[in-house]
């Protein structure tokens, strides 16, 4: 039993985090919005050069063969900066799925080199980043199809998160596009990585509230010296502290694929979603009227948190998995870890 990250994992996370924080400040987000480009090409190539995209793809496919545990801190960091580029889904969800398919007509290799393959999982009715994708991985019943961007019709639906590019997709399956069947653990991976991003988003909201509360004066003193404000912020931090270990455990346990492991992922999604929700609303409150504005950067993080809370399965849906686990598997102090219930 060793519930800790290795030094290598911490160092890799740290390097990725520094790169993301440096290159993805709120001012960068605003600049990107003004330019009307879907993504920052310079940042995307840095991400690519650092090898982050292929981290979880197997080595024999040119990837780094790493695990979700290696990647989970990077997903938190991507949440922390509200990264507009689709690194997390591509590296953590799509590539591992592609690499399990017998044959992808070269898309695995292309994706590893930075081509975007968007993913249309039945849990999410709209496909994110479909417009900038080179191809889409779509489901038709149990069958999986890889369809080139040119072969689908996209209708943009506007998310209030300006960096979420969501599309309704019309397409026709054919034997030529079929690449396999069964989504495997894709939905769980999506949910877990959304949870990790929400942990990062929650911490970002808290840090912004702290910075503002130190600075903003009312009644002749910083509002952050006022206990009502302090306690509101501290309560949000408690939520984050107890979502984080669940997310980390879920990353380690997800590959077991059992009900216990899936319930851990569901728990992670619920707990991180609640932490992000509490932290985002708390941060708006701490900012007062400023918190409601476009000028203050907070909304970028609030919106992403809200979007991820509803993506890859709602809390209500995940709760059913947890209820199922509590009903049907052993509970109690000797049943903490999914491996104990195999």
């Amino acid at each position, binding site marked *: *039993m*060793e*519930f*800790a*990250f*290795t030094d290598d994992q911490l160092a890799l996370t740290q390097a990725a985090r520094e790169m993301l924080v440096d290159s993805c400040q709120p001012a960068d987000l605003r600049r990107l919005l003004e330019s009307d480009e879907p993504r920052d090409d310079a940042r995307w190539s840095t991400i690519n050069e650092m090898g982050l995209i292929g981290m979880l793809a197997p080595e024999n496919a040119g990837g780094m063969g790493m695990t979700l*545990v290696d990647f989970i801190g990077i997903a938190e960091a991507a949440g922390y900066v509200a990264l507009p580029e689709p690194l997390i889904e591509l590296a953590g969800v799509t590539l591992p799925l592609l690499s399990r398919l017998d044959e992808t007509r070269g898309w695995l290799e292309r994706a590893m080199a930075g081509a975007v393959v968007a993913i249309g999982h039945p849990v999410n009715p709209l496909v994110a980043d479909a417009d900038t994708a080179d191809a889409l991985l779509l489901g038709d019943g149990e069958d999986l199809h890889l369809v080139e961007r040119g072969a689908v019709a996209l209708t943009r639906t506007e998310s209030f998160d300006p960096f979420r590019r969501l599309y309704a997709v019309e397409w026709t399956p054919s034997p030529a596009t079929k690449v396999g069947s069964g989504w495997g653990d894709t939905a769980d991976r999506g949910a877990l990585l959304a949870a990790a991003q929400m942990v990062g988003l929650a911490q970002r909201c*808290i840090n912004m509230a*702290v910075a503002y*509360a*130190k600075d903003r004066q009312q009644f002749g*003193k*910083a509002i*952050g*010296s*006022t*206990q009502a*404000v*302090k*306690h509101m*912020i*501290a*309560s949000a*931090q*408690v939520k984050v*502290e*107890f*979502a*984080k*270990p*669940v997310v*980390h*455990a879920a*990353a*380690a*346990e997800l590959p077991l694929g059992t009900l216990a492991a899936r319930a851990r992922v569901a*728990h992670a999604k*619920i*707990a991180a979603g609640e932490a992000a929700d509490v932290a985002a609303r708390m941060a708006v409150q701490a900012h007062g009227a400023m918190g409601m504005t476009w000028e203050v950067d907070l909304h970028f993080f609030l919106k992403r948190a809200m979007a991820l809370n509803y993506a890859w399965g709602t809390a209500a849906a995940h*709760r059913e998995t*947890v*209820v199922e686990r*509590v*009903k049907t598997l052993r*509970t*109690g*102090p*000797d*049943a*903490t*870890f*999914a*491996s*104990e219930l195999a």
Partner: protein
Amino acid sequence: MKLDYTPDQQRFRQEVRSWMTANVPPARLPSFDLTREGFEAHRDWERKLSEGRWGMVTWPEAYGGRELDLIRWLIFEEEYYRAGAPTRVNQNGIFLLGPTLMEFGTDDQKARFLTRMAAGDDIWAQAWSEPGAGSDLAAVRSTCTRDGDEYVLNGQKIWSSRAVFADWAFGLFREPGSERHKGMSLILFPLDAPGVTRRPIARMDGELVFAEIFLDNVRVPVADRLGDEGQGWHVCMATAGFERGLMLRSPARYQMAASKLAALYEANKKQLPASVGERVAQSWMDAEAYALSIYSTASRLEAGGTIGPESSTNKIFWSELDVALHQTALDILGSRAELVAQDQGNAPDDNWLDGYIFALAGPIYAGSNEIQRNIIAERMLGLPRA
């Protein structure tokens, strides 16, 4: 990250389990807060534990321990709660004073106190709070006046858990004339010393869970001061760190309660809306989250890490989870919730009402949750003091 137990750890779990199966009293012991008899029954249990060298498993062997790491400590606690073993009557001693003695005690003090503590021969009470010094502990006014190689203790302590029947207490005293954090000393004194008067305080349900302690010219040797003279505040804060950090509330307690809650729900669910099942699941999740967090802290500490102000988040989390969990149980009982335990019709160890009353105190003791939130805001997040 390896989230499964090593074969050694599994064997250790089995060892604890067999011992508990063979030794845990089959019937619930009488309360240690109501009668001397109940208290002594618990002392006997402490003695039995120490005979098996289970009194305090993380302690050095020299003091009756097993020098186990924190992961094994967690496994021990899991099996302890799983077996339904009695609540530790000496928890203030073993979980709070013990680690403090280990860090600040002289060799003589360690030899005199630790073994007897682990053996249940001395049951300890914590005598910090005073009528005018609760959250504001630096306001204590009880004094220690130096007289040669003795201190003369005077003053009044309050809310001292288990002090009604306990043998010894560790108290916070100040040099006459000193103010706030300066001039305080942590002093160990026997509760039957001349000049000590104890007045039990009945909790709202009538149990005598705590006491007032009056000190009238109580003489204790200077050798029974823990830590340096005037350093009492510093020593106490270390103890408070143990209290909130890890030892005071191991997760197994809440996981066991969540498990029983799930069983209570199963037995009653025909009459209940599905939303109650979701609250049961929420309590289970919270107990799991607490366990995972403690496992991750323990792993970090084992690897040489330290525990900081973030430990204040633990105290808030377990105390709030405990209240919510018991409230859910009472909601399941519905109109039976108000009945005293023996009339609720549950198994005797499913005393949800008692658990609820106890849970209500969680956000108050060991530093109230308001104080913990101040600590998180100021020391963990760096917000300015008022």
